[in-house]
């Protein structure tokens, strides 16, 4: 080796012009990709968010994380031999702390792949729902929580990121969000002026929205009048003399809009126009909380409260790990990563829920949004800071969005 190292003559050859040109093209492409990754328009369109952190973060940033995530997902979708499944899943459960007593179905041989096991269901009643206004949407660990001040969300102590960068805002200079053709699987149907049937369950509109029942002409509450007539049990069969001749839908829409306006419960779409970041009603504040799902956790997420999702925004981004270590090291990780922002309202005003993808779980599924596709390989990546948008108004004309009850399953994270 020493002889070869010292005595082998070096002979230089001229590179063909085509190879040199190809090299320049590759270098230019890498430079463009890096600048796209580092520059992220802030809420005022002036600031930028760069990949900031120690050397480990920059090493990870140089890796093709999205491609690795998709390969990981493909490998975990491969069907495992039946004899191996109990052993393999028990090993996985032992390693990551899964509780096999609560999974449904309990027979491990029925999970064809690790991906299927990862997206497992729980037995009915395995997660009792607390009687409170806000419950945890998933199993996990609370990373952080607090109040949002000046439109900035605290990631770790002393470091913040922009709320508008997280949720997205329309602003001049950026291409308009694409309207996605939306085919909701779950439907809400108005039964009469006070009740709606949502996925087979009858809800009082006022209880759902947290708005008071309007008084009748005689001054008696609407609820008392309601109790005098039977609650309709089958769609389209009820007859209600109090409903206007135009039909129950128009009546309920007008009625709900009136109540909502009275209570200041206006749709997010309207409130967002011209609203400075972080502004809320008097005596109100904007709160946030971040919940981290570890690899062994149940990976479906549920509605944390009764609310109406009005729109979703899909941000195509990177897929950095979102482990507590990474959150501590990489500033703006929640703004850089691929995510789906679900925006709407609950009884106290604005409500938003943002599932954020990661390297091992890059795919986000929303049950009521069949058009959503995440972690998809694409030749032309959309400009950073833009998002694909879908509006859920067709899901329920009366509620102007997709209604969700507390603890209702919303979707989940897939491996890869």
């Amino acid at each position: 080796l020493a002889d070869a190292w010292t005595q082998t003559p070096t002979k230089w050859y001229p590179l063909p012009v085509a190879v040199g040109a190809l090299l320049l093209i590759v270098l230019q492409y890498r430079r463009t990709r890096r600048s796209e990754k580092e520059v992220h328009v802030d809420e005022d369109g002036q600031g930028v968010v760069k990949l900031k952190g120690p050397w480990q973060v920059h090493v990870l940033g140089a890796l093709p994380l999205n491609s690795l995530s998709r390969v990981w997902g493909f490998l975990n979708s491969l069907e495992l031999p039946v004899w191996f499944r109990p052993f393999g899943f028990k090993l996985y459960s032992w390693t990551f702390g899964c509780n096999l007593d609560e999974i449904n179905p309990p027979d491990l041989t029925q999970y064809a792949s690790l991906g299927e096991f990862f997206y497992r269901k729980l037995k009915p009643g395995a997660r009792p729902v607390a009687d409170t206004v806000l419950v945890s949407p998933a199993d996990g660990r609370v990373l952080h929580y607090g109040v949002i001040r000046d439109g900035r969300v605290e990631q770790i102590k002393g470091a913040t990121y922009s709320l508008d960068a997280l949720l997205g805002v329309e602003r001049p200079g950026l291409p308009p969000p694409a309207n996605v053709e939306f085919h909701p699987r779950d439907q809400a149907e108005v039964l009469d002026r006070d009740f709606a049937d949502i996925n087979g369950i009858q809800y009082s509109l006022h209880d759902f929205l947290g708005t008071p029942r309007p008084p009748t002409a005689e001054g008696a509450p609407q609820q008392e009048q309601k109790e005098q007539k039977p609650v309709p049990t089958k769609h389209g069969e009820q007859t209600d003399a109090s409903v206007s001749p135009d039909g129950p839908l128009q009546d309920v829409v007008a009625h709900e809009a009136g109540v909502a306006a009275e209570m200041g419960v206006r749709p997010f779409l309207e409130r967002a126009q011209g609203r400075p970041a972080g502004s809320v009603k008097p005596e109100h504040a904007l709160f946030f909380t971040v919940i981290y799902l570890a690899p062994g956790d149940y990976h479906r997420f549920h509605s944390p409260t009764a609310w109406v999702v009005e729109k979703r925004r899909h941000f195509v981004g990177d897929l950095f790990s979102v482990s507590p270590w990474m959150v501590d090291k990489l500033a703006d990780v929640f703004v850089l990563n691929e995510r789906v922002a679900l925006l709407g309202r609950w009884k106290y005003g604005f409500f938003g829920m943002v599932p954020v993808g990661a390297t091992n779980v890059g795919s986000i599924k929303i049950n009521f949004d069949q058009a959503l596709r995440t972690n998809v390989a694409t030749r032309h990546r959309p400009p950073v800071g833009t998002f694909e948008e879908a509006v859920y108004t067709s899901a329920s004309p009366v509620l102007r969005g997709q209604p969700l009850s507390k603890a209702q399953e919303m979707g989940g994270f897939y491996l890869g």
Partner: protein
Amino acid sequence: STIVLVFEAPQDFEFTVEAGQKIKMGEKLGDL
């Protein structure tokens, strides 16, 4: 994976969890 919740609520809203605490789906996150 991570879930971020952002919501408007009256100022007397209080979280009933601590940072770093493990939590299950459906458990109380906060109250008024």
